[in-house]
């Protein structure tokens, strides 16, 4: 009996401890996690634990000091370049290690290792897109360049010095996410840095609508197709002002290219699942010449619109070593500063939005797929074996077939046990040609920009940049401003790559590339400013063909109009413009919509006040305003019913963007066939019918919302901008951020995306710069620096960005220091 009691009293705790010491499925080991010393409480940073620290890395031969200011921005002063990049790696890992780990895993298609089976399709797609293949090519290129290799070497060493040579971080020291997801940090590698850059390339250029366009060409007649998806319109306001004369022609090297007309497939591409997510990435940047500013100094502004997450994509840092001193936003995982400034110049980027990803149908000789038709010959394929490790599951082994175009992305993947694995779409036998697969040296661009002193340095720096194609804006203290659309662009015949191409015809292949000098660029334009907001790079006089999955048609007009009118511009003017909430698409849409609604104010009902509010609206999407909510519900409803014929469940289509939708509403005529609702066989709807019915739906929707709580109608609550933790844990996120704006508005804050880094740099002496991003320097949810910028960002505040000229100045305003010797 006694032994039984002893047994019970010991067995229960032992079993409980055993269970709490291990994870079950997605549940982490709760005992370890709840440990008040080494568990999650180890991540509860002491609020005032900011002591000066000395670390000894003599074995690496690095020395330098980091001064942290009151926003936890590190001001790195390295004894030499190597020390500086080492310290950048070390400090970034210190604050963002888990983010670096998970983003590079996401890039490489290694999430199943952590999250299990449900991420196999995602991982397969990353592998099949050739993310690791592309990164390996970039790495091979890096290894040829001694300077760049030394830079990446130092960064990698720095990260690994933080993790520890033998990965000796203790459980207590792990970032909280490792504890929650129950896995360990692993050593950093050069390949991971390459993966991080390819991840950005994928974020910014990993879209296209080639299949959708091919299908639309079958759905729509030619005149509708051209009206809804044209290459140019009569009213574009391009990045390169129309004053620019293109004194070159697509020259002899390309003569053989321009001979054939792209023939869209004469049949629908038989797939359903559309790869085309309506792309939400975008950005604004502009540079004013001294002649347009109050102090006579050039001013440069940039706000890249990317997915807003915690920890933020950006890590603010000053990098200083003999020979360079710069400040700005860096990408955790890559050395150098991506968007920033030094004492002489400032630079920034927006996405080029030009299509650099095309699809070729491949005709294989046989089921082995070992060769494919190319002209009159058969070319051999190569194979790449991708092994995906899966938590609590057998590894998945996938064989990806590569043609000279690139990988066959979509087909049934054969997995190790002989079963087939459905991939997210079924584009059987199509090869992807993507500029991100070309060997390139993007780090070098940033490395050189960080040191640039003038316009020539800027041009040389960006010449190394291939993908993701960007609009590089530039301003220098000596007065120059410039913008260049830089990337590696194939020379295309008209229409090439707008739809799917026949890969067996060599004429459809890329022949050569636009020379760097002939990429769209302008220096010191007469209008006194350069600007870009993801619109067309040029007008139609540009000699080369290009197309886009999504040029932007609104922000550029607001920005260009504002900057044209602006004289004696100040920092305040720039802040106001970056936060401009004017909803131009709403203005243009309502111009068509309101006159077509039966005036509800003739009879007494609840619709009248909404109608009146829309009539009197100043088109500002301010956070607390209610009218933007009316408009958006109305517009979303209308947009869906206008393009109902593109809601196929069998065939992939993309819908015209807002701009061409509004144009169609204006120009197509009230009873155009596309306005008819397909589902109603015996009734023919007109545009006026659609506008009326969507208005009625809007009124009902708003009334039902008001029923619960009138406050729900405030624009920011309806829009609901969530800055989600990367792991999607709501508890670590900022939900319903109080901010206005929307897609197609200069303040492009949507549900998930927005200005991820707002920067304004006046190139005075010394430089006068301001910036903010919706996050915090620390990636630790247990730190007060985790999300401390978010509210200021939402309220439109900026922080001064202090580029300290020497260590003494940095020391004066530092909270604490880390010394490396």
């Amino acid at each position, binding site marked *: 009996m*006694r032994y039984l009691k002893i047994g019970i009293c*010991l067995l229960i705790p032992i079993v409980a401890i055993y269970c709490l010491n291990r994870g079950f499925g997605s549940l982490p080991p709760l005992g370890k996690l709840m440990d*008040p010393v080494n568990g999650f409480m180890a991540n*509860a940073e002491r609020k005032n634990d900011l002591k000066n620290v000395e670390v000894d890395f003599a074995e690496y031969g690095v020395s330098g000091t980091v001064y942290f200011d009151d926003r936890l921005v590190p001001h790195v002063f390295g004894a030499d370049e190597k020390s500086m990049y080492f310290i950048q790696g070390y400090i970034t890992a210190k604050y963002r290690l888990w983010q670096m780990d998970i983003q590079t895993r996401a890039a490489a298609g290694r999430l199943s290792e952590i999250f299990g089976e449900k991420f196999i399709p995602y991982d397969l797609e990353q592998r099949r897109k050739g993310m690791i293949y592309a990164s390996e090519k970039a790495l091979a290129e890096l290894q040829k360049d001694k300077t760049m290799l030394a830079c990446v070497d130092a960064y990698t060493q720095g990260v690994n010095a933080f993790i520890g040579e033998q990965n000796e971080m203790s459980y207590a020291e792990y970032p909280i996410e490792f504890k929650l997801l129950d896995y360990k940090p692993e050593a950093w590698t050069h390949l991971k840095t390459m993966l991080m850059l390819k991840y950005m390339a994928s974020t910014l250029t990993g879209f296209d609508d080639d299949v959708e366009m091919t299908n639309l060409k079958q759905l729509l007649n030619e005149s509708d197709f051209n009206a809804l998806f044209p290459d140019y319109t009569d009213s574009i306001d391009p990045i390169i002002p129309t004053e620019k004369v293109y004194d070159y022609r697509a020259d002899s090297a390309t003569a053989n290219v321009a001979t054939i007309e792209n023939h869209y497939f004469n049949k629908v591409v038989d797939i359903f699942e559309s790869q085309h997510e309506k792309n939400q990435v975008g950005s604004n940047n502009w540079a004013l010449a001294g002649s347009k500013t109050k102090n006579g100094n050039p001013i440069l502004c940039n706000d890249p619109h990317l997915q807003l997450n915690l920890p933020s994509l950006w890590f603010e840092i000053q990098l200083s070593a003999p020979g360079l001193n710069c400040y700005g936003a860096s990408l955790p995982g890559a050395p150098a500063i991506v968007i920033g400034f030094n004492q002489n110049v400032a630079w920034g980027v927006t996405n080029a939005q030009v299509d650099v990803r095309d699809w070729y149908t491949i005709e294989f000789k046989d089921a082995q797929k070992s060769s494919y038709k190319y002209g009159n010959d058969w070319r051999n394929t190569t194979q790449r074996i991708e092994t995906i490790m899966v938590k609590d599951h057998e590894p998945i082994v996938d064989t990806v077939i590569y043609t000279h175009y690139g990988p066959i992305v979509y087909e049934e993947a054969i997995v190790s046990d002989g079963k087939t694995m459905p991939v997210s779409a079924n584009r059987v036998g199509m090869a992807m040609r993507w500029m991100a697969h070309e060997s390139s040296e993007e780090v070098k661009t940033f490395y050189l920009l960080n040191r640039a002193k003038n316009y020539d340095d800027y041009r040389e720096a960006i010449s190394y940049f291939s993908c993701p194609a960007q609009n590089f804006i530039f301003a220098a203290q000596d007065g120059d401003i410039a913008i260049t659309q830089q990337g590696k662009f194939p020379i295309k015949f008209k229409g090439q790559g707008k739809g799917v191409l026949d890969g067996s015809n060599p004429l459809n292949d890329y022949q050569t590339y636009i020379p760097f000098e002939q990429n769209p660029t302008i220096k010191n334009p007469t209008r006194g400013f350069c600007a870009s907001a993801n619109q067309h790079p040029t007008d139609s006089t540009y000699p080369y063909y290009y197309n886009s999955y999504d040029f932007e048609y609104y922000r550029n007009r607001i920005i260009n109009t504002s900057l044209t009118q602006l004289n004696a511009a100040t920092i305040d003017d720039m802040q106001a413009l970056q936060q401009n909430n004017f909803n131009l698409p709403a203005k243009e849409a309502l111009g068509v919509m309101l006159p077509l609604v039966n005036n509800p104010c003739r009879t007494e009902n609840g619709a009248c006040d909404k109608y009146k509010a829309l009539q009197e609206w100043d088109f500002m999407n301010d956070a607390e305003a209610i009218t933007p909510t009316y408009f958006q519900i109305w517009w979303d409803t209308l947009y869906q019913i206008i393009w109902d014929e593109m809601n196929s469940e069998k065939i992939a289509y993309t819908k015209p963007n807002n701009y061409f939708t509004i144009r169609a509403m204006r120009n197509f005529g009230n009873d155009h066939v596309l306005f008819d609702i397909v589902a109603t066989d015996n009734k023919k709807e007109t545009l006026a019918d659609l506008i009326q019915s969507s208005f009625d739906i809007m009124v009902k929707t708003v009334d039902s919302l008001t029923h619960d709580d009138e406050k729900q109608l405030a624009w920011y609550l309806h829009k609901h901008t969530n800055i989600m933790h990367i792991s999607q844990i709501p508890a670590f996120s900022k939900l319903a951020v109080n901010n206005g704006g929307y897609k197609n508005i200069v303040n492009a804050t949507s549900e998930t995306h927005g200005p991820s880094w707002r920067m304004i740099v006046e190139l005075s002496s010394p430089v006068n710069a301001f910036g903010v991003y919706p996050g915090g320097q620390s990636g630790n949810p247990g730190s007060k620096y985790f999300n401390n910028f978010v509210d200021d960002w939402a309220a439109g505040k900026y922080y001064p960005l202090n580029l300290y000229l020497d260590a003494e100045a940095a020391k004066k305003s530092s909270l604490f220091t880390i010394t490396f010797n």
Partner: protein
Amino acid sequence: MKIIISIVAGIIICIIAQLFLPIWWIFAVISFAVSFFARYQTAGKSFLYGFIIVTVSWLSLYLFKDAANASIMSDKMATLFSIKSNYWLFGIVSVVMGILGGLTAMAAWFINKK
């Protein structure tokens, strides 16, 4: 008096052990050992004192660390686990661990009772 001393000593030992050993379940060993050497009167009392030692140790560690952090971390964890507040989280975990500690303390009592 002896009981109070044993409990206070147990708490101190438990806190120190938790602080310096990377074994989260060390409390179970300590409450066992304290009970074994203190030889409490009854099995029930052994359980109670073991429970007190562990619960108080864990709660103190939580509260001490939490105060220095202004609850930034614990609030998030409570939300993550859908628990009302961080103090509820501390309370629930400490009580669960207390029960486990109480059981090992009771086991020690049964072992002593020849």
